[in-house]
């Protein structure tokens, strides 16, 4: 390994020895591609002509119009595939081709990363298998259909909690046996080095664009950048270009589920302790024996007991701060953005919207709030229907 793969004390490569050559091969390809003009040009072309970048920055016309705050939405929901996930799967698929892998595997929670992986699988003609917790297969059935339509095999995972963490376990087991021919296309900034660095770098286009757009459209940088955090890739993507701007607050919003003190949430950075899961030293929701806890969130994509190690580092240094948003508040924000702005956000992204609304409504001076609208809400209509009927 060329890089140490650490963010402060967090990160590392905690994987079975058998996977180390695969990680080394991937790191080498990533570092090599980073210096390669052709690679960048190919990726830029795909991002523009296939995925639809740049995505717009939209200043909310109605949402919180009666407050001193302006809410700016980075419209990753308009990206091909319906979420920010498409940015980085294009990068990883190009790397997989570079190192001669003909098969890709991935985990998925809400199904957005699975859909994105199925997209590149179809585009590049790669055999594609998606591991998805059996519970998530049920609650995100539309995305399962999308993946299958694009030719991916979707494998419901019946072990453990039957959600995202178990899908990652199963993908890692597959990779331990198949690494010679297979690339593990991990979907977030978690996992062993080089994934946290590589996925962040492929997602930082979100923040780079948003920064230019803020300067062009608002004439200034935002006062705060707000994003939801499950594994943390959309947040790292929009944070990365603002980390050195000390006047810009970075705010990550974790799923507080039924409440931070309910024991039923996914607020890893707020309630977790140091631990090692899925290849990295990070913060973890776990019991006193070190067994990883079951988590809960209204949004399958945030339902994960770990978090990307760079977020753990940003929390430890205080550069970013992390807050919780309950299921109820996220669902209220989901409805408000739909009704007031004509945009149906993913339930994941609704957590970030809720925090922006909260800040706007308590603001007493002018504020520019940049929110990563990381995905669209079509996939959540079943959940929304159920919640509305039970209301």
């Amino acid at each position, binding site marked *: *390994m060329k890089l140490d793969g650490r963010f402060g004390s967090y990160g*590392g*490569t*905690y*994987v*079975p*020895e*058998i*996977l*180390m*050559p695969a990680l080394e091969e991937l790191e080498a390809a990533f570092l090599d591609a980073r210096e390669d003009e052709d690679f960048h040009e190919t990726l830029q072309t795909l991002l523009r002509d296939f995925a639809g970048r740049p995505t717009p920055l939209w200043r909310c016309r109605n949402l919180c119009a009666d407050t001193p705050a302006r809410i700016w939405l980075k419209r990753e929901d308009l990206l091909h595939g319906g979420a920010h996930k498409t940015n980085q799967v294009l990068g990883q698929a190009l790397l997989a081709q570079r190192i001669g892998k003909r098969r890709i595997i991935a985990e998925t929670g809400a199904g957005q990363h699975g859909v994105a992986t199925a997209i590149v699988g179809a585009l590049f003609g790669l055999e594609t298998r998606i591991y998805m917790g059996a519970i998530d297969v049920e609650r995100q059935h539309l995305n399962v259909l999308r993946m299958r339509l694009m030719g991916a095999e979707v494998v419901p995972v019946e*072990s*453990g909690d039957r959600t995202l*963490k*178990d899908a990652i*376990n199963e993908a*890692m*087991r597959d990779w*331990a*046996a*198949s*690494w*010679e021919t297979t690339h593990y296309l991990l979907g977030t900034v978690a996992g062993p080095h080089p994934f946290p660095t590589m996925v962040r770098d492929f997602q930082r286009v979100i923040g780079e664009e948003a920064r230019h757009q803020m300067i062009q459209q608002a004439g200034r940088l935002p006062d705060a950048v707000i994003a939801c955090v499950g594994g943390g890739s959309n947040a790292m993507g929009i944070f990365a270009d603002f980390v050195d701007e000390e006047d810009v607050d970075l705010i990550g919003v974790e799923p507080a589920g039924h409440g931070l003190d309910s024991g039923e949430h996914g607020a890893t950075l707020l309630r977790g*302790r*140091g*631990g*090692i*899961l*899925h*290849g990295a*030293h990070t913060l*973890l929701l*776990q019991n*006193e*024996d*070190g*067994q*990883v806890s079951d988590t809960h969130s209204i949004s399958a994509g945030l339902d994960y007991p770990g978090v990307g190690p760079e977020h753990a580092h940003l929390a430890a240094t205080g550069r970013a701060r992390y807050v919780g948003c309950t299921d109820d508040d996220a669902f209220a924000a989901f409805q408000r953005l739909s009704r007031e702005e004509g945009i149906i956000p993913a339930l994941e992204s609704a957590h970030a919207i809720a925090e922006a609304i909260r800040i706007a409504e308590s603001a007493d001076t002018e504020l520019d709030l940049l929110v990563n609208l990381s995905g669209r809400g079509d996939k959540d209509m079943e959940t929304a229907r159920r919640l509305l009927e039970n209301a």
Partner: protein
Amino acid sequence: MDRYARMFERLALQRQGAFIPFVMVGDPDIPTSLDIMRALIRGGADALELGLPFSDPVADGPVIQAAAVRTLAGGVRISDCLEALRTLREEHPDVPFGLLTYANLVFHDGIASFYQRVARAGVDSVLVADVPVREAGPFATAAAQEGVAPVLIATPNADAERLAAVAAASRGYVYVVSRSGVTGAEETVRHEPEAVFRQLREMNAAPGVLGFGISTPAQVRAALAMGAAGAISGSAIVRRIADGLGDVPALLGDLETFVREMKAATAPEYDVA
């Protein structure tokens, strides 16, 4: 001399290899598990390889995952497992006990504290399945301070540099795997690991023991013929436990017989029928 060194010396004098069965401690409950471990020793196990149950065992296939699930679902705590080992240690002062577990169980409450606890339970070695040699430093240092041997894995895809690092860091024995993948996959040995055993000897490493894919006496014999100092059998035994829990006395007899047959294959006069 530590227990592993004495075991390998005794076996060398008898011109035998080691047979090391694996079970999950606490599977399905502590009293039954203690009886199972006693049966393995009665059957002639030279050492025991023992899993500490973890919620997310990424290096294990379905059989051993299910054992961890059974154990944790039964409410077994890590302290219960270590207490059971301390009991077994009093009954069997000479049999080496190796633990096989995952990084978070070692790490979450402080690495030093974990090795103190396992040393007090009479454990001889610890293999952490998701700690490769690149990350092994702090684990090996803490282990050494408590007189616990850190065991590392030599893989068929390791280059000379990685193998040298494993050889230098692993104490007690080196866990050699003969194929990619997780525990318990239903296939015979795919990579021929002779070269790994030869290189480990040239590097003056601790004795190499073959894990993965050992479920019959013929496979034990084949492992020794390839240059292994012993063989570890896990999924074959854990599957017997899963299938036999309805009649524990019969299960204990079956396990003792299985170990006896596997152990018999470690003797030079063993005839592969």
